[in-house]
């Protein structure tokens, strides 16, 4: 997973695997060509938009935690 990136940097302290996953989810779930009305996904009754926002917030929150521990 982490090998799919040339670079991921949050200062010097970061688990790039976790970050790679968050960044991937952020791109895949939030962006891309949409064929209107044709996307049907499921995740325990949570809709895509809600999940997408959480992914972004999660990546920020996780970064915040890492920075606080420094």
């Amino acid at each position: 997973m982490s090998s799919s990136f040339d670079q991921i940097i949050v200062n010097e302290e970061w688990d790039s695997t976790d970050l790679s996953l968050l960044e991937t989810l952020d791109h895949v779930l939030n962006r891309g060509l949409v064929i209107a009305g044709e996307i049907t996904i499921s995740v325990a009754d949570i809709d895509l938009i809600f999940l997408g926002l959480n992914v972004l917030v999660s990546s920020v929150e996780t970064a915040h935690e890492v920075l606080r521990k420094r």
Partner: protein
Amino acid sequence: MKLYAYCLVEDVDALDAIPLGISGAAVRLLQVDEFAVLVSNFDSDTVAVTRENALDHAAVVRSVLDRTTPLPFRFGTLVTEQQLSIYISARRPALQSRFELVRGCVEMSVKVIRELSSDNSMTESQGEITSGTTFLEEKRREIRGGEQRAAEANDISTWLHEQVENLTRDEQVTVRPSDKLVVAAAHLVARDKIPQYKETMAAAREIRPELHFLFSGPWPPYSFANMELEFKSQFGVS
């Protein structure tokens, strides 16, 4: 039988070394007009949002990035072959325009985080609220704090834009002022400018040590695939 659509490509008539797709299905090329779509068969009407599925989607799209710049479909795009054909034929000029924009480029992602001090935030509670006046003063502090965060976020966004404007073909910026100031930018960068872009971003980190940066890339141009098309499909403009 539905098809799971991964991305739209141009100038690709054969696939090699493509990973398996969602649910382990083989990925193939479906030619539609002058484009081709990477698809795999899909038995259900619903795509589960799982880590594995999301990564499978990303891996398939990424697998063609070295040879071309695809327009990725959003995760969970299920279509019939007929629907796909109609969609592409109906939006052919807009798709051609999208390809003109992203051709030869990749997406680079930047997130900027700044932790505001309590002095700056102006939203910290100043003690127990004991009267209506105190309540209103507290609300005023909150509003001013929000305005300050928004202004700072916009300043950072502008500064970031100035650093890379000569290196980017397009950008998408989201400003999210919150307790942790966040600016999320996607830059569309020509492949031959990536080394210079990285050097510029490295220098930017040195210039603003109070900010925390998260860089990732290169990505397929997820953030540049859809805007105009979405607008047109939403409002029926052709």
